[in-house]
């Protein structure tokens, strides 16, 4: 359904115009840096490339400030869960406690410690927090991460079951190709018939690669066009 009409559009506000000018100027500046090599000092920072690097560092620093806002949002959302005794409030307590405890342990004693040589923090305190940090990181976080990652195996199986149903000509071709690749990939395939490996290689090298490249080239062209649109028009909220 076509929905947004020209009547719904409004003129850009002053703030949006200023923002658009900044977006365009920065985009143009980085394009210039990419295409032009000017070995002359710029604003005492070395050449144009160095100036761009400096600017990028400042921008990254500014963006990193937003991290605090993310943490504040997370804290407020889960504190509200606890305050209002929502059904999941117990999980929110665990989340907040583990997040802040891990942050403190990391700052005191971890590879990211503010005092890695333990010059200010007493060695005993460092040792205690380091063992806590190690436990939380390796025994809890890494294990949970690995568990969630391994769930993929089951999700792939259920998704493949749905995708490999011969409902039409296209899905039948997909089913046949999928089966041949699975058989070709299995270690036993060579013993059944050596040709399975060859068929698998052919499917992966030609139809599969051709299809993927088609999508990639299309996406690359889409990104090019999208970037141009973003540079000349305030992206959203209009």
């Amino acid at each position, binding site marked *: *359904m076509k929905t947004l009409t020209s009547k719904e559009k409004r003129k850009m506000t002053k703030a949006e115009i200023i923002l658009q000018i900044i977006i365009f100027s920065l985009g143009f500046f980085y394009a210039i840096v990419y*295409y032009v090599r000017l070995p002359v000092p710029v604003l005492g920072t070395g050449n144009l490339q160095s100036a761009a690097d400096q600017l990028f560092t400042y921008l990254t620093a500014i963006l990193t400030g*937003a991290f605090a*806002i993310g943490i504040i949002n997370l804290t407020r959302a889960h504190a509200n869960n606890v305050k209002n005794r929502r059904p*999941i409030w117990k999980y929110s307590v665990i989340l907040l406690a583990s997040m802040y405890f891990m942050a403190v342990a990391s700052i005191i004693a971890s590879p990211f410690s503010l005092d890695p040589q333990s010059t200010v923090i007493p060695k005993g305190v460092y040792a205690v927090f380091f063992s806590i940090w190690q436990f939380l990181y390796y025994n809890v976080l890494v294990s949970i991460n690995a568990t*969630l990652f391994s769930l993929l195996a089951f999700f792939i199986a259920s998704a493949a079951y749905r995708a490999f149903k011969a409902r039409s000509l296209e899905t039948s071709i997909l089913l046949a190709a999928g089966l041949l690749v699975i058989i070709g990939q299995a270690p036993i395939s060579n013993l059944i018939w050596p040709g399975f490996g060859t068929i698998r290689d052919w499917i992966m090298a030609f139809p599969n690669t051709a299809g993927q490249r088609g999508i990639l080239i299309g*996406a690359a062209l*889409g990104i090019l066009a999208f970037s141009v*649109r973003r540079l000349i028009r305030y992206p959203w*909220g209009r």
Partner: protein
Amino acid sequence: MYYRGAAVIEGSQAKAGVATSSDGIHWTKTAVLTMPAGSSGWDAYSRQVDALNIGGVMRSDNTYIMSYASIKSRNSPAQIGLASSSDGISWTPYPDNPVVTYGTSGGWDSGSGGVGAGNFAGSMILAARNQYYVYYAAQDPSGTFTIGVATLPLSIYPISQTTSTTSSSTVTSTVTSTVSTTSETSIIQQTTTTTTPVPQPFVLGSILPSLMIGRISQATLLVITLGGIFAVTRFASKRKLKTRGIPGIERLDNWIRQAGELGRPVFFTPGTGTIQTPDTLAALALLDHVASRCAQNGVRLIVANADFNVHQVTADIVKNAYKKAGREDLYTQDTVQYISVRQFAYAAGVMGLLRREKPALNVFVGDFQAEALEIAEAGRADAIAQFGGTSNVDQLPFFMATCDQTLVGEELFTAEGYLTDDPQTISKLVGPDAGKVIAILLIAAGAILVTLGNQVLTTLLRL
């Protein structure tokens, strides 16, 4: 000794250090190498995360020269650059890096995609016979490593022991060497051609030649393309144009309306990409539309983010949409939620949200990695409808299998144009299409010329 290491933490980046020893057995770490942070070019990602994948270091007089590998974005193959230093600790990158680029797709040094700096596992540099030799180990798509060699002119970093005979601004050198097999995967057998632009000393009045260094063919092409885009956009804005339509995208508004009728929320996530990821930016443009429709239909929208900068922008978009529709009452602090920057913590958070909130429509559009299938499968268990979209070809099959409607590749970047009748917006789609036509013609011409053995176009447009 120079060495490379990283913290024993998942996601930690490699850094390089110096250690000294008097007996070659007992070593003392003395310093960590530094390089200016941040970059807009070939090593953007490596510099952003402050990684230094050191290859080899050579010394001549009082200058140290290092080869190192870097990547442009999280999933791009690595390339090799050079840097110089007077103390061996603080390094300055060579301005026209990379000096060794990854090879043509499918080739022995093309990388397997998504392997990052592992593509070029190691390198070393030495100077001999009036040129530099960079030896490097590279990976082909099957993951097999091969050692290759590239030559570079001495004029990059002139050293006194040898005399550079190179004076032109661009040097093309080719070297082929064959060495007997040492093992199955370490064979020096390849031919590498490297084109290295050499910076000219700046002299007032010779600014034009300075501008000509490097990517002038590409810049010219870009200007022509942008001119074409602008002209076609102007032409199209005065005409009533119709878009061909993406099958199913019209259903998005119906689904949102149905969510309103059912009294259930709509869920949206832009994935795990950063604010610099094109897919994420395209997702934000689509969020603008989804949020507006939700606000107009009185539907509660829930947005989950993995990146804190994206979180800020999505909060702004959704808040504005509700404000514009006069439904600020629907915007609460639970509307836009920051979950976690960690991939699977984010996936777990999203899966929990889907299970608890039971949305009537899930919109998964943006940059997704392995978590795509997990959240889409979790969503499918409860949701009425799912709308997916990404340009990541590895995750697209999962969305195709689990979503009712999927935006494939380029469709993601043009979706906003298909949701409007406004001729101005449609004309902005038509204009860039002119650029695409130019790009497609160049790709076709390049493919034909290369097939016929002619390298003119590829040489002209090489980075």
